């Protein structure tokens, strides 16, 4: 079928905080850049985030998410970036012979159309884990919402999810929604957390729960939802150290709404359709420090790579990937860069949930930030070491490490010399020595 064909150097999927930054960086480097955004407006999930705390590092101000998105999208006109909103990517295919990607997309404005591009930046963000993915049982009545869905209903649609809510998950979205729903007149039964400590930032515990008298119940989870048509109550239970419900500790709590803030899953179906395996630890692609995701001209950034805590980090990774994508598009041969196998793997050692990037290209100039999370809370202090064999390439001391808060370690890969593999190691013994 003959369909409209558009040519580009860099196509950015989609227009949230990572994609906006990527597109601006790519266009700034001279690439013909298109943002394909599935929603009607740019900004991604930030549009519904009316609480503040965004952009402290980048703008030096505590902006709302909406304002942060507005600051970025205001830079689009005149930047050279072409935005296509309400545009859905139906298919992405690699044309190896021509060294390009062919996207088939659909929008009300253009119908079905194709874009041929040298580079793609995947900035598709993440989705929320739902009730059954954390093994909550019972029937499926109305009144069960993920926190993001509840946030959109309240902040964008002006709709109140229910009268009395129980919130499962003390991640930042859960805490923020507890306060938001209370301010809108809902009764908040409490915030429940399966882990032994809260998952959100300390400032959110204080500002969202403590200041409003909302109780936080640790080591407790929801095991069952009751009600056929609308939620009538839920069963909660204490959990043991492994997170399994303790038999006999069950208690029924009346509520008509259950809000779930129980984790985010990077959305990488497009990468998977290109045959790329995902890192089981992050559920994102394996990337190098430029966001290169394993195929020529294919880059990824933001929450599609790993779930970030701060939007500033998301935008930073977008800028890096956008610039790299533009650089790639400028190169004459759109194949793997010569000597791509010079990249060395970076592995997360015991005690670490993951470390990103998973590959280091020693030829790329500039400081690299390795983002990592521990898989348990460390209160006594620890040292994190980047090692090549027995050689310590970089290290950093921490007073404490908590899984909900990603940390980073910087190093300069051009100083690596000859390395085969890198390992990020957690040294808990070092804790006693104090922190720097």
């Amino acid at each position, binding site marked *: *079928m003959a369909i409209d064909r558009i040519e580009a150097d860099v196509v950015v999927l989609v227009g949230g905080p990572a994609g906006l930054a990527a597109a601006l960086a790519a266009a700034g480097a001279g690439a013909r850049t298109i943002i394909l*955004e*599935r929603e*009607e*407006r*740019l*900004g991604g999930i930030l*549009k519904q985030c*009316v609480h503040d705390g965004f952009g402290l590092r980048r703008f030096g101000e505590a902006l709302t998410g*909406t304002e942060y*998105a*507005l600051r970025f*999208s*205001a830079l689009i*006109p*005149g930047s050279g970036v*072409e*935005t*296509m*909103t*309400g545009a*859905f990517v*139906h298919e992405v295919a690699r044309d190896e012979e021509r060294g390009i990607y062919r996207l088939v997309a*659909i*929008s*009300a404005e253009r*119908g*079905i159309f194709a874009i041929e591009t040298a580079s793609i930046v995947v900035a598709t963000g993440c*989705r*929320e884990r*739902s009730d*059954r*993915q954390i093994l909550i*049982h019972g*029937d*499926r*009545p*109305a*009144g069960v919402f*993920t926190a993001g*869905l509840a946030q*959109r*209903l*309240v902040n*964008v*649609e*002006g*709709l*109140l*999810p*229910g009268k009395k809510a129980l919130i499962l998950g003390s991640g930042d979205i859960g805490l923020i929604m507890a306060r938001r729903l209370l301010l*809108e*007149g809902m009764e908040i039964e409490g915030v429940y957390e399966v882990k032994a400590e809260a998952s959100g930032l300390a400032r959110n515990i204080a500002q969202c729960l403590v200041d409003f008298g909302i109780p936080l119940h640790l080591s407790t989870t929801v*095991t069952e939802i*009751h009600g*056929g*048509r609308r939620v009538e109550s839920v069963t909660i239970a204490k959990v043991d150290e492994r997170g399994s419900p303790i038999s006999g500790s069950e208690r029924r709590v009346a509520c*008509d*709404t259950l809000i779930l803030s129980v984790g985010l899953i990077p959305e990488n*179906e497009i990468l998977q359709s290109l045959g790329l395996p995902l890192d089981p630890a992050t559920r994102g692609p394996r990337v190098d420090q430029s966001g290169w995701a394993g195929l020529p001209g294919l880059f990824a950034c933001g929450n599609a790579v790993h779930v970030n805590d701060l939007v500033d980090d998301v935008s930073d990774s977008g800028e890096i990937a956008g610039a790299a994508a533009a650089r790639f598009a400028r190169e004459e041969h759109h194949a793997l860069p010569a000597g791509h196998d010079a990249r060395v793997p970076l592995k997360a050692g015991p005690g670490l949930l993951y470390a990103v990037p998973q590959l280091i290209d020693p030829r790329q100039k500039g400081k690299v930030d390795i983002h990592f999370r521990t898989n348990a809370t460390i209160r006594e202090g620890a040292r994190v070491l980047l090692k090549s064999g027995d050689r310590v390439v970089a290290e950093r001391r921490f007073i404490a490490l908590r899984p909900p808060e990603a940390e980073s370690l910087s190093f300069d890969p051009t100083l690596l010399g000859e390395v085969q593999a890198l390992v990020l190691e957690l040294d808990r013994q070092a804790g006693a020595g104090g922190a720097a």
Partner: protein
Amino acid sequence: MTIERFRKEVADRGLSDVEASEWRGSIRLEGQVASWSDYVELGRLAVKIGTRGVVNDLEVSGPEGCDLAHEDPLAAMGHLEEGGELEGLSFDVAIVGGGVIGSAVARELSKWSISTILLEKEEDVATHASGRNDGMIHDGFAAKPGSLKAAYNVRGNRLWEPLAADLGIEFARPGSLILFHAPAAKALYPVLASRASENGVDGWELWSRSRVLAEEPKVTSDQHGGFFLPSAGCLSPYKATVALAESALANGVRISLDTIVTGLETEDSRLRRVRTNRGSFAVKALVNAAGIWADVVAGMANDRFFSLHPRRGVDMILDRASGALQRHIMAMPSLLQGREVTKGGGLVKTIEGNILVGPTAREAPGREDYSTSQAELRELDRHFRLNRALSPSMLITYFAGVRACTWEEDFIVGPSASVLNLVHAAGIQSPGLASAPAIAHDVAASVLAILERTMKVSPNSRFVAKRRPVPELARLPLEERAAWIGRDKAYARIVCRCEEVSEGEIRAALRPRPAASLPPSVVGPASPEGGAFTEARLHASSLDAVKRRTRAGMGRCHGGFCTPRVMETIAEELGLPLTAITKKGPGSQLVAGETKAPAAIHLAAILPAAIPPSAERAAEEE
């Protein structure tokens, strides 16, 4: 077994408060037992007496306490409105139950010039067993030879393919592969083949270990060949039910949703009137297709010669990406355990490409208890190992369905022995979906025989077999998709990103074209084959009804992203406020009201929309 022997066996179990008596040619159990397992055990034991049916009216005391015999379907339907729409009307036939059976019977009857009404107590068809199964169209191998199940299954399996084509729904025959778990199982091939032959199954093959591996590269290495049944098929059970109901609607059947039967009036062994929450009306014949409540409806007609007990099944739904990892339906039952071969669950590849893991089978008291439990989910773990590429991280969700089981474990299909104008389609559990077209054929024939005693019945000359479905754009070639978008740009606006469902599809599913305002058959443009087809839509009004028709919200984010947009589309199409939109009909409102600033500050509105290229150029020129 004699009834005396049965009584002795009951006494041997120390169950003193149980009485067994003959009743309407059946055996009836009354009294009390202390546990649900006793209830089930005695129901099964009573079958051995060999009467027409077993009516198990035992009450279960204790923590599992329940009294199925006296359960009232109205009890859970407090949200239903009273109305008078049906008061004083008269129909030739009333069908109780809008599942796949009731809907298929309605369509069969619409081929005749008679007046038919289909009554469904929920806000949509296919909300219970018909919407809560894996969509497999069984080959007929597993059914007990000589049973109604076996006969109807094989007939139904053949009928579905042309029927699905007429209804405009997808149907495929991936075939079912029963894997051998031990080398010795291969020796059972003659036994398996003889059973397949006895049931009249359309084809079977013995596959070697290497053949299995060639056909299913991701199969467990712990397999020793298999028994392959190529006729096993699959379709979407809820789309099929909606399609049958819509085809019936288009051909003149009245469908009354949110309508529950509250009583039946009998006179001289004939049903005269049907009482509902929407008024009472006269009938010449009644079809009992009431699913898990069919014994209660039979009771209302004084024809309760059987009783039903619920058996819950749980299925896991895996991400649609899982479909690329498997070609056939696969299971590995324990063929060597000497028990009767049961299906026992496995991996079913659905028509949409998801893999379903399950189902379980658990006797449990609730007729409409769709709650799941961790123990049931754990039972399904063993199926994962059949396909090495599958992992529990692919789980989207899981759901429960309830099988309507007679104690005889067979269907009851045909005219009542005592009520002259009542036809039963009861005890329709698995393979009920596969059997539905054949059951509907026979039930309709019984109804016609009843009607012909008092009236002349002629064919409906305006019956149109073909139905045009709501298009599923993601599954169409790009040319056809572009044509739909050319007609309406709403087909280019994707609402459900996981299943790639457009706003146009949702609108099409929501636009009722009531038969009242149109000729009995809405004749559309000629189909490629040259015939006419119908386009009537059964009124969909809930989020779940939209989901059943379009799959919006059925994907991996499970409605996390699309719910607000689907709500908005429903509200616009039906002219309702957003606060009135329900998940599954009255009483299941999705939201409680508006926020404090009712004219919501649409924060999104302050963000710039797409900047058209022309505007961008203008900006550059400045």
